[in-house]
């Protein structure tokens, strides 16, 4: 009943930490940031190591593991500020691949293999808040053909994508999810400069883009029903990244303050500094506990699929941890904390950007409040 990782899970986390220590060092991250923000070599390594196939079902050629394993990897990637779009191209679409592999028949399996396992970067084109909310329309043009028109104003990680999964509205008002390569004729991808340089963004526009039936991966009720669990899964995955960033900010602050001398002793021996670091620790470890439990629950065999409260818990704890720890990391670095040369601001930017994605803390709390204060009440009254 205790919340503990099994040996395989521990090994995944430890080996990822080792790989990233080597392949995504601070120096390397700096280099990649100057060159546009994508570490393609690391992405290829991630593919080679099977990270991108981790949660893809076995029948589709993946390893068939769960959110817990993704969370452990995503946490390490956050810790090392690894410049690969693991969240948008692996963690977020994972429930989609599972759905397609289980319910999509042969064409579904083929799509998963083509999009998730071919080594290309296939980004899920959610809105910033994790909703489908596209300003795009998909219309049938010929017997077997569709046409896509519209705008996706701000798609994270898209500037480096090879392929995109784009939501669009059907004539009946429901949504479809369309897979396209970035070379598709009529598709324009305009990279955007981001505050968090380690994660790209792009504005995407489609003008009369031809879409083959195979590229309409999912539509109507099936997509609508998948989306809420997918959003909750993704929120837990993003929370793991935030835990990693928060923990790294703590580690940087502790290391710096224990080395930096003022008034004849390490700054880290002053009680005010120690207490701040301890408060960061509280935030980090509570958030980690929340994220791990949420992932465990997602992977439990009897999981009912509804992860609203665990996701809300993971996201709110992790967002607060990341914001608090990265802010205090700057403060505890003193003067060098607000220089470009030192790393704290990189994590600070990441934390701020993360806080606005997949729903803000206030939005998750309101959703939790609906469940706790409105719905449970109604349910109880209905029973009574």
């Amino acid at each position, binding site marked *: *009943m*205790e*919340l*503990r990782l099994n040996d395989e899970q521990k090994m995944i986390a430890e080996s990822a930490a080792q790989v990233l220590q080597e392949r995504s060092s601070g120096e390397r991250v700096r280099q990649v940031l100057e060159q546009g923000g994508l570490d393609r070599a690391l992405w290829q390594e991630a593919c080679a190591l099977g990270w991108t196939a981790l949660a893809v079902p076995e029948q589709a050629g993946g390893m068939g593991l769960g959110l817990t394993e993704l969370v452990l990897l995503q946490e390490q990637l956050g810790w090392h500020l690894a410049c690969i779009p693991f969240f948008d191209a692996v963690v977020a679409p994972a429930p989609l691949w599972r759905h397609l592999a289980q319910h999509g028949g042969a064409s579904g399996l083929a799509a998963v293999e083509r999009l998730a396992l071919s080594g290309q970067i296939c980004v899920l084109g959610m809105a910033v808040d994790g909703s489908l909310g596209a300003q795009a329309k998909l219309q049938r043009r010929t017997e077997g053909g569709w046409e896509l028109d519209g705008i996706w104003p701000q798609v994270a990680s898209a500037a480096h994508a090879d392929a995109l999964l784009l939501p669009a509205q059907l004539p009946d008002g429901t949504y479809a999810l369309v897979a396209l390569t970035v070379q598709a004729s009529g598709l324009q991808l305009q990279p955007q400069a981001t505050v968090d340089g380690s994660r790209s963004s792009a504005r995407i526009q489609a003008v009369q883009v031809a879409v083959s039936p195979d590229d309409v991966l999912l539509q109507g009720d099936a997509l609508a029903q998948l989306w809420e669990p997918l959003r909750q899964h993704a929120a837990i995955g993003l929370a793991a990244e935030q835990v990693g960033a928060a923990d790294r900010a*703590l580690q940087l602050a*502790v290391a710096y*303050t*224990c080395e930096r001398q003022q008034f004849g*002793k*390490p700054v*880290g*021996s002053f*009680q005010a*500094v*120690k*207490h701040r*670091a*301890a*408060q960061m*620790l*509280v935030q980090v*470890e*509570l*958030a*980690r*506990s*929340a994220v*791990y*439990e949420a992932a*465990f*629950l997602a992977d*439990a*065999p009897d999981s009912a699929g509804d992860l609203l*409260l*665990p996701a*809300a*818990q993971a996201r*709110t*704890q992790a967002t607060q941890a990341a914001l608090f720890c990265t802010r205090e990391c700057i403060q505890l670095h003193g003067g060098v904390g607000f220089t470009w040369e030192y790393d704290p601001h990189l994590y600070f930017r990441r934390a701020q950007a993360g806080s606005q994605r997949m729903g803000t803390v*206030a939005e998750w*709390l*309101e959703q*939790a*409040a609906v469940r*706790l*204060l*409105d719905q449970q*009440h109604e349910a109880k009254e209905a029973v009574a």
Partner: protein
Amino acid sequence: MNMQESEINRAFRTEVRAWMAAHLSGRFAALKHVSGLGAQGYDAQLAKEWEQELARGGWTGIGWEAQYGGRGLPLSQQLIFHEEYVRCGGPGRIGHIGETLLAPTLMAYGTPEQKARFLPGILAGTDYWAQGYSEPGAGSDLAAIRTRARRDETTGEWVIDGQKVWTSWAHESDWIFVLARTQEGAAAGGRHQGMVLLLVPLHQPGVEIRPIRQITGTSEFNEVFFDGARTEGSLHLGPVGDGWKVAMYLLGCERGASTLGQQAHFRHELELLLALARRNGAARDPLLRQRLAVVALGLQTLRSHALRALAADAPARVTLVSKYAWSNWHRDLGELAMDVLGDAGLLLQDDADLAALQQLWLVSRADTIYAGTNEIQLNLMAERGLGMPR
């Protein structure tokens, strides 16, 4: 438990529920959901009889080895017992100092005679223990204690002089374990040397107990004065001179399965608050809604964290966080309760649920102070959890 609960554990959970439903009734019904901690209407005599009822049901010492009369249940079932116990309304455990603190220390450090003499009474719910650690001049700095223990050369007895404070339930207890300074073993020097942990009967002329009136107006804590108080020469627990080490071992027993019982109690308080908010309209206030969601999610996180911290391989940086986290969460809950009460919170309420929330607001101020203040906890986390310099 929500996750991977085995069939055996599910059955055990059902067993606890059934027993509680059958026994926490009749005259014991008055104890339902009464926290004990300075709570109004807590009848100590009835609570002791309830402890004996538990003992008869085999629910005391459930984790103890069979040789001590326990059931040797695994940690997971201990967790389930404590959680279900409180969920079913089980009252605050008046015997917990003996059962969860002293008994494990007796098992680790006690002589065969001490174990044989004291464990059965604890298990049966007939002997109650108080803790004699803090003193007026030794709170956060426990090593500053001044209570002295010396040997009576003629009888071989220990003679104790000094004053202890914040001794919970001393007025309802039979025995107290007292951390005291003695000359023996002090040769090596150092402020942690030369102490002894003594087992001392409370009902004797040399002991005076004075209640401390708390912020709630009630008295759970006491001052205990020792003026030539005596105990048998053999009743030191562990080696004389090494009392500090034994005392610290005892404190380490506090973190355990009963954590989930505490959290189940928090859950009960939270449910009272959510119910009030639904009733009085606070649940429709966009700001109070957010704060209610924060505490509700926060409690779930405390539980996740407890389950993670209870794992045998949990590192210090994980376990050290727990006390700070729950005590501050509970304090926040109390503050929120008053804001949800609104106007009504200004008046002392008769309604038991509302009064419980007002009590919570007052009582929870102590949570960040006793058993290591926030400040001490932060020191420990920084130094032991993060390795920062002293």
